[in-house]
């Protein structure tokens, strides 16, 4: 069991606007988000001594550090697995701070993934790294996009549980409903119906267009400090109760087709076991969940993997209204990545913090603990964040 439970806290959050064309460099987005998060925390940028991000992020630690006027960077680390990495930097920060390696760690993700390049495009690559030869082996079959890889996983799930495309629609409708009242969401004021979802074109059958998140430009950063330091700062401390990575046997990057259950659930369950043990909690202790929705249907498997529903029951859980703002477990109250923006889940971490501080636009009453997950269908990560009292 990890022994950093509740020893560190998120003291600040910052984000740029989310758009299809930011009009400025990715580095500027990263620096803006970082400075906003530090200002939110009330920490002078010169105090930052640690940084953590995704291996996929194009902004180097030292360039951000140079722009913010940093003095002495002691800890810098990156997490692989694309969107599976979301909560990895939080875990890195918690470990570094609780062991005295660093004091103020900025976790960031910033990208112009819509305006400067396209995301979710066919995957191919040289040289023949251990990952690239696997992508090529599946690409050789015509299986080249994240949507098709997740679609393959979800088809089997549908076969085993009876879930249908209309069940997937029910999630998309909730995400867009939440986004519709979030002024920062790309789809602010644009709710959809089940019929809209069913009429949207196929991307990788069973996945339709309205099952897919949207490529976005934007940046998000959070500042992690010791819990003790956080209590002396201006914002209500959001404790990192637990953070974990999960990659059980047979889990591959968008390619777990050779294990018993090919649905994107095992990796969530692996992270969940660690989270609940470290935080000494059960799913019943969680009031809000931010579940990674690169593709909306994976919210069903995440609800099950993180223990909120029994296997196969997520479709009825969603249909019953449980994941709406007034439900028993509000999910993705910001609109998720389907509705707000796709910043590799970091915008979901920020939403978890807002819910715990009582600052969310779709605020849920009585929130003490929020579970945040990263992308599934890949080696993943997750965290439980909470507040005292």
């Amino acid at each position: 069991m990890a022994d950093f439970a509740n020893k560190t806290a998120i003291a600040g959050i910052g984000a740029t606007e989310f758009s299809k064309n930011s009009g400025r460099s990715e580095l500027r987005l990263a620096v803006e988000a970082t400075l906003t998060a530090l200002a939110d925390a009330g920490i002078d940028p010169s105090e930052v001594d640690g940084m953590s991000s995704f291996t996929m992020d194009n902004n180097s630690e030292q360039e951000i550090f140079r722009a913010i006027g940093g003095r002495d960077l002691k800890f810098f680390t990156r997490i692989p697995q694309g969107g599976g990495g979301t909560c990895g930097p939080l875990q890195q920060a918690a470990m570094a701070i609780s062991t005295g390696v660093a004091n103020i760690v900025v976790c960031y993700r910033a990208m112009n993934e819509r305006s400067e390049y396209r995301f979710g495009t066919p995957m191919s690559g040289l040289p023949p790294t251990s990952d690239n030869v696997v992508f090529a082996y599946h690409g050789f079959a015509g299986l080249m996009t994240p949507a098709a890889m997740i679609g393959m996983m979800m088809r089997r799930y549908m076969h085993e549980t009876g879930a249908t495309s209309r069940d997937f629609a029910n999630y998309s409708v909730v995400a867009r409903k939440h986004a519709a009242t979030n002024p920062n969401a790309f789809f602010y004021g644009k709710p959809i119906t089940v019929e809209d979802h069913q009429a949207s074109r196929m991307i990788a059958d069973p996945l339709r267009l309205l099952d897919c998140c949207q490529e976005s430009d934007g940046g998000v950063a959070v500042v992690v400090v010791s819990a003790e330091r956080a209590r002396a700062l201006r914002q209500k401390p959001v404790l990192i109760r637990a953070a974990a990575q999960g990659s059980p046997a047979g889990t591959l990057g968008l390619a777990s087709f050779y294990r018993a259950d090919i649905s994107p659930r095992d990796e969530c369950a692996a992270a969940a076991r660690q989270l609940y043990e470290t935080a000494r909690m059960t799913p019943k202790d969680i009031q809000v969940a931010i579940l990674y929705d690169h593709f909306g249907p994976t919210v069903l498997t995440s609800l099950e993997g993180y223990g909120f529903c029994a296997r196969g029951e997520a479709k009825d859980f969603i249909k019953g209204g449980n994941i709406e703002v007034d439900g028993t477990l509000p999910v993705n109250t910001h609109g998720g990545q389907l509705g707000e923006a796709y910043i590799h889940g970091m915008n979901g971490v920020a939403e978890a913090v807002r819910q715990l501080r009582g600052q969310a636009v779709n605020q849920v009453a009585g929130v003490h603990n929020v579970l945040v997950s990263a992308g599934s269908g890949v080696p993943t990560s997750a965290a439980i964040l909470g507040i005292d009292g």
Partner: protein
Amino acid sequence: MAYGGDAGGEAVAGRGHNAPCSNRDFDFFYRGLEAEQLLIQKCGGCGALRSLPTPACAECRSFDWQAVPVSGEGRIHSFVIHHYPPLPGFETPHPIAVVDLAEGVRLVAAMDGTAPDDLQVGAPVTAEFLRRGDVAAYRFRLS
């Protein structure tokens, strides 16, 4: 024909196939297709079959292996129909399937050439060989 674990020692230029991104763990598979053979790895230590090539046996950790032919008969475990974006070498929409082979291991393979509406989980399938440009390939069709 033997495709042992040391068979990839030659230079890449002489690897015996035209698959664009491979390494010495995967070359045997693409070379097999050049000979219209569907090959998978069989552990030289414990005899376990394994699919999705890898250098060591997860059962007994042996690096010793041989490539053995499989029947090409199996059943659809799952499938997806790729619609967008168009991919080089495939006419959309085209299916891809995860197939449970009769030998007890899985393969992920193209099923272009089969009408998407005809697919269902559990359907029996058979491998067939073809060429995509200068690359030797295979796909499954309904049995």
